């Protein structure tokens, strides 16, 4: 056989290459189109937030406003009420994230590293708690939170969200810890670590991506929760961002620029957080079944 490529083969190779390019171009085009359609509602939200209310429905629609109209943002950012919504959401979100991460990681470590009497039952119990309909819990929860004297406090929300977030923290962290070989535990035990030392000094540094994705997910859960935030608080000072936005709808009626401005501002923290760590989160979602 000679090394010279036969003309027929050469054209075939060129054709093959050309077909591959076409296919790639088609895939990119399809992806770009689909992505634009899927992201459009978000873009439109930003667009409307930057237009005066008179232009919200003006035709033909323009994605880019003629002039940027910042009144909505100015109004929202200067109003102490909105600031209090944001602060409440941060306090609740961060507290729930920290607590559920600590408690959840401890439990996940127990599940991942030990075989003990009742371990399967306990694990199934934790998974089951992910499935309990929140709406079913609403009415009795109301009673429990009132009974504990936590009605209309951020503590009530923190405790509630902790209950909802914990199963996810446990399942996700358990999934991560399971991917770390037990050799590390044994090496660390021989090096002189206590069980807690094994977890804190050896496993957690390795599980950092898992911790990040669990934390982000928990924060998202707490930041976005609506039903219990609505039912377990009453005063303006205790409202969180989602409830705040929903109340604007009634209060402001047609002020789309302000509502959308606050929606954008209220979504920004999770959006930024998500973008920063999204490669961890995407991996983490698959580690444990995670709520959609």
């Amino acid at each position: 056989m000679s090394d010279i490529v036969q003309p027929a083969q050469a054209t075939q190779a060129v054709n093959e290459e050309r077909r591959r390019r076409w296919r790639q171009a088609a895939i990119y085009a399809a992806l770009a189109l689909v992505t634009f359609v899927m992201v459009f509602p978000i873009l439109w939200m930003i667009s409307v937030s930057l237009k005066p209310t008179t232009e919200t429905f003006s035709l033909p629609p323009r994605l880019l406003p003629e002039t940027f109209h910042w009144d909505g943002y100015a109004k929202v950012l200067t109003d102490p009420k909105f600031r209090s919504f944001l602060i409440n959401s941060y306090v609740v979100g961060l507290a729930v994230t920290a607590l559920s991460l600590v408690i959840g990681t401890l439990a996940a470590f127990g599940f991942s590293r030990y075989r003990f009497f009742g371990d399967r039952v306990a694990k199934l119990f934790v998974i089951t708690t992910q499935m309990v309909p929140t709406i079913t819990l609403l009415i009795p929860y109301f009673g429990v939170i009132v009974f504990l004297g936590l009605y209309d406090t951020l503590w009530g929300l923190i405790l509630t969200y902790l209950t909802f977030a914990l199963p996810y923290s446990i399942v996700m962290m358990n999934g991560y810890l399971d991917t770390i070989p037990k050799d590390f535990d044994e090496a660390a035990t021989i090096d002189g670590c206590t069980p807690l030392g094994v977890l804190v000094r050896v496993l957690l540094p390795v599980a950092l991506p898992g911790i990040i994705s669990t934390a982000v997910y928990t924060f998202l859960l707490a930041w976005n929760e609506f039903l219990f935030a609505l039912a377990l608080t009453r005063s303006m000072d205790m409202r969180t961002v989602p409830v705040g936005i929903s109340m604007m709808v009634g209060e402001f009626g047609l002020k789309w620029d302000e509502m959308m401005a606050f929606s954008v501002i209220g979504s920004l923290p999770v959006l930024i957080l998500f973008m920063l760590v999204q490669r961890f989160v995407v991996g983490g979602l698959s580690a444990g079944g995670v709520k959609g």
Partner: protein
Amino acid sequence: MSRIEIRNLVKMYGAHQALHGIDISIQPGEFCVLVGPSGCGKSTTLRMVAGLETISGGEIAIGERVVNGLRPKERGIAMVFQNYALYPAKTVYNNMAFSLQLSRMPKPEIDRRVREVADILELTPLLERKPGALSGGQRQRVAMGRAIVRDPEVFLFDEPLSNLDAKLRGQMRAEIKRLHQRLQNTIIYVTHDQVEAMTLADRIVIMRDGKIEQQGTPDAIFHDPDTVFVAGFMGSPPMNLVDCMVTPTGLKLGDSEIACATPDGLRAGARVICGIRPDDIRPAADQPGRATATVPVDLIEQLGTEKLVHFRAGQHSMIGKTGGRVDLAEGAPHPLAFDMAHAYFFDPDTERRIR
């Protein structure tokens, strides 16, 4: 340097008994290799010495102390793991220093020790790297370094070379041997590789199904096996083990008869398992005066300096050896000489040696 006494060691997993009363006595400075097929209990034994598995029965003493209830860190041991178990988030330096930091050793002392050991193992230029940036052999050395810095009474190795490729394994084997000569520590070393066992050990303990099959020096194990299992386990290619019938003049092996002396007490007509190493079966032309049999040779494996000769004897497939330059035709009958002076005889029922 400490002696290790393992007395009647038992391990239960629920109702399943994994170890049936193991007794091993290891002298100070001795290199003891536990070897056997997977599931034989060798790793379990090692991990019980380490304190990673609870002891269901019996006693383990390191030095003069019974360590049964002690935590791993209190036992004066260090361990090298099969997968190295280097902490991925720590540098090589911190991997080695970790146990010393945990025991609250003063920093300068830690630094001195780590650098000294790094020097011995030629790890000094790698101290600031993370394990992810090391090659297999380097990781292996870090794992050993981590064990050495603690200056333990006993080293435990759990199949430390099984993740390396063949060439590196040979190098590391020699390195471990040299290290032992230098440090003179007591070592328990688990492997399933009989070459490692033969080359490294002062004492080999062969285990099977949670029991000790035989223990002794490599020489004793190789040249004086007690059981069919030991005979077949040690040596590569493995010893030929064939069912034979004793005849008045020797053995009947398939259709061939081989003249040889048989142990006293074996009457003609008795069945026996005869073991003979491939090295002791050579072409008849090189070995005048030995018992010969003409057998059909069905396969020749060229290994370079020698060739393996596969042939059939009755329904048994057997292996002999010849020099790498000897020309033998496949598929033709060929006279082979059996060095029956080095043959072993085993009882087919108990599988124990008939001496």
